[in-house]
């Protein structure tokens, strides 16, 4: 299962990287978001995909899964949510003000 998940993580990273290398700002945001999912999956996989019950007091007699990767992923998702939302708002503003979302045209010029 871990091997399979590793391959999926690799595919997600590849797709995300491809999207980030494109010119349109919206595709780049989608790319970062997909890489973010890849990272979350990687954290879960690295913690070990064990089967077992939730680690709560009072549930005796069964194996427990490691709760830490899940807590990490939850935090990472929240942070990813916030940064992606901010990036979306900002790129929307960029599009409105500069009239383009093509990174080729967003290159720096000396005088502006």
């Amino acid at each position, binding site marked *: 299962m871990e091997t399979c998940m590793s391959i999926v993580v690799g595919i997600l990273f590849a797709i995300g990287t491809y999207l980030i290398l494109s010119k349109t700002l919206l595709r780049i945001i989608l790319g970062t978001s997909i890489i973010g999912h890849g990272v979350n999956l990687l954290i879960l996989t690295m913690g070990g995909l064990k089967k077992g019950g939730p680690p*709560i007091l009072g549930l005796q007699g069964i194996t427990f899964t490691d709760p830490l990767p899940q807590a990490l992923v*939850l935090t990472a998702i*929240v942070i990813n949510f*916030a940064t992606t*939302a*901010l990036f*979306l*708002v900002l790129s*929307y503003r960029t599009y*409105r003000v500069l009239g383009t979302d093509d990174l080729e045209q967003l290159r720096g010029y000396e005088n502006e």
Partner: protein
Amino acid sequence: MKGLNDVILRTATKVVVVIILAFSIHLFVSGHHNPGGGFIGGLAFVAAIVLLFLVSDIEKVRNNIAVDFKNVTALGVLISVFTGVGGMIGGKPFLNQVFGSVNLPIFGETGMATGVLFDVGVALAVIGASLTIIISIGEDR
């Protein structure tokens, strides 16, 4: 969204919004021992409000919910931080939680945790922040 022929959406929304809101409260309350909690409860709440945005105008909804969502965010974070500070006053570490059970009139013996207060803050912060973002994108067109 005005002017679209969205009778089905309008009719369904009247029912669905209530269900989503009820479910968000359920998610929030079940948070201590089961899947759920402030973050997810808050997001479900936002989903209901966004559905209202889609059906009627953003302006109309905002006139009816006369709250500034930035203040909601600030209030939520303050509540969360101050539940942490509460532990400090008693000489315990920051973010110390207390769990106890109280005998309530109707519910009987009920478990109460100060963690709930923290979660209230989280839920308010999530609701406020998400709606602020959605409104700031949706408002200028």
